[in-house]
């Protein structure tokens, strides 16, 4: 069922500079060339009956309901498949058309249940609407003949055409008895999602929709994106939540709180209850598509595990005590003041959340800088995309991606390195797949055979299956080929880049040691593949690079980001549509939390705290003197905690005890702190070490903005009251006031107004502006009043582009006899980050434990079979997971996800980090893997500690 408020114009909008004028029902109408007659009519408010047509899909022409008459043409062409022509005269309502349409509907209804009143689609069913529109009054054929409706015939014999309802998917049902075989679901799976899980099986009256090889939905290739459910014109595919609750009465546009794609959704509501989430067709990032997380996995927001009352305790071995907000806030302020009095101003700090809004993130860093009087503030981008900030700022001049997502429509070559968009950024992954199917070439640089390498109708032209840790080496070999074979865009470089820096870079990568042949032994990538990929990237037309954490989370993460920017500059692939450098951000608001001044060394808009004029502007606005030196980064905070100089930490919506590397080191640091304050939805792993718990609010409970991977600022809109009474920004404000630093905002829009005043790239942004435009990409200011889809056009933000040197420095994390395998980590589609949200939804049906993926050769050598328990040991720690033997891996490399805390993926990862930003080297850990029969010592301790903490929570006392 489509959204309750969307208007469906039948076929997709067409872009064309040529305008065609035609006449429909006597009215003159102008539309772009290539538009269908159906859409042209709809634009003029003339609704032609339709069933198989919807504007989320290409025209199909199967239902024969949208027939029209056109002067001078024979017969009754389908208006959905007939493009407009100049001077065309169309009639949509004639006696003959009415007879045909009624006849068509009569046939449909003769094989459809007549349970409209108790049907979940009642009132929004397109079949029901069309029966009304065509004036169907009788079905002469009766209902007794061959049909798909009844399980048994009148004699009690089983009906061979009947197929029972499939309720296997946790989020939607498939009721074939209501199916009209319009193929909208099949086409949605093909055109929108690109998975091809659905098909029409059989011919004629035998035709039916089937998932994979007639599997149940849950057992099929279906990725549960829900595009088919949205496309279905009847109740054949229906959300279970819609069946349970009935239809919504209002809808609110908001932004998804999962990955960095930042999809726009309509939250369809009944009062304060969500009926369903429907992706917004007008959403600029997603154009009406979604994934299983954003559309369906929202049950966490109302999960019974949520803690909606503040709690405090003296020691982490004490039971929690439920207290009033007033007492909790007074307690935190008094503890933080005590710590600063005893250990100095710099002994406390805060961590902002990439899951919270910009306004909330901004307030936390303001509290730290202005209220605490130091710069000890950091954010989880430290452990994911901090190298992007450093690397892109150094080369291009701005710490952000250069394009919008739609830019890929103009790309001829797509280079994906260290990213797995079909799992981690699924909606953009689908857009990428569409472009690849339309002919763009694909280069994948990844140690694993990710889905994109070979997926229906897509095959990578090059897959450089490198050894983990050799990104910079591979990028340098690509650069070597471009330089050595004369593929540099000399005119672009001469006009746009610093010449001296370019020459230094050219000399570096031209060295023989960076030839693909010389590096082959190090990277494991055959030289001819590198040469082919380099030539394709440099000469294949518009070439765009997309990268993720497989680039940043390395000891040379920042170097790799700069190497990517160098490649784009050297080949002139920057500063227009279809090209560019595109970091795919992990969490919903990673870009925003970085923009908001969450890093200890910079204010909003990436301006250093040492810059006196910038600092002065904040001092004037905030009314206090501000510290002019960088504060502690998250890993520095841990070190400082262990040496006794750092004592108190305010953590908003981040779970460092699960997400950060070397878990045992992190938990030791947390235990060394005297006051840990966690503000979150759940008692997460970090909260088990906390002294104060403050209830957080979900994205459904507050107003604000998120910034996605394209720098797009979108509104988050409140659809229900905060379950713990306050939105997160209000909690930070209470804390600031209690600490003696006054904050008096009455609405998040005022916080954005302050951000806009103080941040040049945000000058033009306000809630009003976003409401007006739908969303806006920063920089948005006097020069770019409607935002900036593509950056660095004509000139780089820093003026001339700067080539940075990218010497390959192998990581110190090396395999040896003791630890002969390399472990690398990543994500899967159904789960999100530490899993705190998705583990509390039915998404666990797809992934209920983290597994160790291992190549059959490595498995056989160790006597490991599928499902065996295996111990994984690094120099940092040991954990135990079940094995999944998989040829997606290369020999010598093992892989796991980190969605479940008990898996202990980060017990194994080490303290190694990116040289420039201390982003952890999650992607390379030397390990040994052996068959074992019981959990690791750490896991036993973890389980005991977790049980104890759960008991302390269950024993929480109310005063």
């Amino acid at each position: 069922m489509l959204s309750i408020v969307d208007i469906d114009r039948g076929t997709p909008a067409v872009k064309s500079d040529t305008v065609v004028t035609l006449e429909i029902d006597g009215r003159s109408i102008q539309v772009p060339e290539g538009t269908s007659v159906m859409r042209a009519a709809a634009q003029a408010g003339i609704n032609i009956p339709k069933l198989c047509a919807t504007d989320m899909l290409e025209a199909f022409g199967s239902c024969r309901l949208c027939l029209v008459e056109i002067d001078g043409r024979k017969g009754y062409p389908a208006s959905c498949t007939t493009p407009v022509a100049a001077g065309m005269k169309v009639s949509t309502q004639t006696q003959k058309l009415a007879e045909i349409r009624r006849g068509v509907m009569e046939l449909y209804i003769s094989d459809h249940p007549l349970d409209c009143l108790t049907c979940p689609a009642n009132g929004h069913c397109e079949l029901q609407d069309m029966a009304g529109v065509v004036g169907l009054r009788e079905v002469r054929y009766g209902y007794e003949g061959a049909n798909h409706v009844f399980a048994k015939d009148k004699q009690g014999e089983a009906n061979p055409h009947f197929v029972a309802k499939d309720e296997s998917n946790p989020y939607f049902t498939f009721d074939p008895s209501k199916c009209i075989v319009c193929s909208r679901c099949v086409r949605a799976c093909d055109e929108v999602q690109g998975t091809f899980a659905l098909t029409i099986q059989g011919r004629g009256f035998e035709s039916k929709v089937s998932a994979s090889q007639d599997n149940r939905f849950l057992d099929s290739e279906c990725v549960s994106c829900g595009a088919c459910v949205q496309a279905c014109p009847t109740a054949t595919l229906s959300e279970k939540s819609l069946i349970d609750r009935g239809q919504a009465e209002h809808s609110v546009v908001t932004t998804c709180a999962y990955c960095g794609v930042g999809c726009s959704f309509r939250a369809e509501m009944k009062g304060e209850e969500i009926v369903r989430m429907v992706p917004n067709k007008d959403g600029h990032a997603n154009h009406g598509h979604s994934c299983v997380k954003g559309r369906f996995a929202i049950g966490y927001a109302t999960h019974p595990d949520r803690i909606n009352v503040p709690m405090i305790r003296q020691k982490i071995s004490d039971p929690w005590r439920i207290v009033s907000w007033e007492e909790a806030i007074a307690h935190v302020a008094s503890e933080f003041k005590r710590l600063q009095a005893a250990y100095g101003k710099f002994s406390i700090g805060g961590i902002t959340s990439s899951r919270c809004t910009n306004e909330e993130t901004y307030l936390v860093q303001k509290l730290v800088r202005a209220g605490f009087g130091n710069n000890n503030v950091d954010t989880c981008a430290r452990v994911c995309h901090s190298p992007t900030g450093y690397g892109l700022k150094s080369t291009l001049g701005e710490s952000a991606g250069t394009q919008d997502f739609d830019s890929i429509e103009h790309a001829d070559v797509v280079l994906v390195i260290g990213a797995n968009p079909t799992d981690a950024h699924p909606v953009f992954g689908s857009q990428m797949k569409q472009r690849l199917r339309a002919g763009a070439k694909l280069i994948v640089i990844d140690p694993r055979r990710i889905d994109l390498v070979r997926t229906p109708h897509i095959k990578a032209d090059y897959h450089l299956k490198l050894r983990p840790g050799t990104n910079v080496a591979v990028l340098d070999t690509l650069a070597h080929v471009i330089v050595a074979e004369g593929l540099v865009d000399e005119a672009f470089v001469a006009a746009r880049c610093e010449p001296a820096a370019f020459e230094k870079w050219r000399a570096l990568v031209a060295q023989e040691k960076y030839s693909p042949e010389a590096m082959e032994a190090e990277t494991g990538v055959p030289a001819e593949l590198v040469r082919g990929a380099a030539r394709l990237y440099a000469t294949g037309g518009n070439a765009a690079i997309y990268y993720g954490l497989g680039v940043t989370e390395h000891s040379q993460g920042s170097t790799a980001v700069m190497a990517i920017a160098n490649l784009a500059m050297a080949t002139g692939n920057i500063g227009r549509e279809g090209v560019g450098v595109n970091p795919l951000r992990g969490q919903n608001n990673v870009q925003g939390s970085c923009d908001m001044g969450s890093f200890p060394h910079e204010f909003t808009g990436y301006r250093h705290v040492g810059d006196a004029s910038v600092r002065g502007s904040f001092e004037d606005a905030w009314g206090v003197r501000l510290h002019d030196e960088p504060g502690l980064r998250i890993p520095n905070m841990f070190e400082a905690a262990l040496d006794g100089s750092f004592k108190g930490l305010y953590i908003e919506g981040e779970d460092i005890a699960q997400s950060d590397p070397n878990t045992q080191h992190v938990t030791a640091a947390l235990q060394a702190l005297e006051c840990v304050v966690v503000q979150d939805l759940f008692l997460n792993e970090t909260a088990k070490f906390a002294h104060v718990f403050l209830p957080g609010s979900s994205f459904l409970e507050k107003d604000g903005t998120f910034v996605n991977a394209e720098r797009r600022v979108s509104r988050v809109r409140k659809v229900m009251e905060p379950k713990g009474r306050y939105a997160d920004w209000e909690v930070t404000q209470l804390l600031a006031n209690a600490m003696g630093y006054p904050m008096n905002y009455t609405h998040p829009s005022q916080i954005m107004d302050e951000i806009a005043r103080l941040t040049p790239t945000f000058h033009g942004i306000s809630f009003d502006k976003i409401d007006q435009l739908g969303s806006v990409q920063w920089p948005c200011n006097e020069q770019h009043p409607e935002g900036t889809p593509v950056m660095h056009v004509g000139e780089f933000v820093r003026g001339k582009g700067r080539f940075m040197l990218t010497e390959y420095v192998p990581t110190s994390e090396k395999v040896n006899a003791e630890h002969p395998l390399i472990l690398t980590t990543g994500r899967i589609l159904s789960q999100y980050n530490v899993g705190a949200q998705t583990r509390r939804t039915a998404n666990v049906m797809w992934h209920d434990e983290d597994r160790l993926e291992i190549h059959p050769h490595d498995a056989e050598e160790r006597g490991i079979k599928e499902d065996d328990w295996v111990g994984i040991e690094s120099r940092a720690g040991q954990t135990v997971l079940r094995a999944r033997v998989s040829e997606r891996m290369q020999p010598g490399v093992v892989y796991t996800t980190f969605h479940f805390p008990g898996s202990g993926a980060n017990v194994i990862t080490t303290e190694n980090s990116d040289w420039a930003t201390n982003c952890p080297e999650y992607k390379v850990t030397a390990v040994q893997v052996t068959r074992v029969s019981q959990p690791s010592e750490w896991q036993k301790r973890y389980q005991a500690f977790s049980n104890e903490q759960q008991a302390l929570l269950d024993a929480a006392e109310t005063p």
Partner: protein
Amino acid sequence: MNIERLIAMANDISHYFAAEPDKAAGAASVADHLKRFWEPGMRRQIVAHLHAGGEGLEPLTKVAIERLAQIDPKAMS
């Protein structure tokens, strides 16, 4: 803070800037990086470690930290 960690981090930074053909410029970049991104207490600690013999610091790192000591009064206090 754990000085071993600081030594490793400082050496990591100089490994990057070692590619700079002009060694003095490379050392200056390392020093500048430390000044821009390291909290002053960490800078003081690494300078003090250098002045106590600098065990574990690689040659370029040593030159850079000496330079940091000259340009950064906060690393000396």
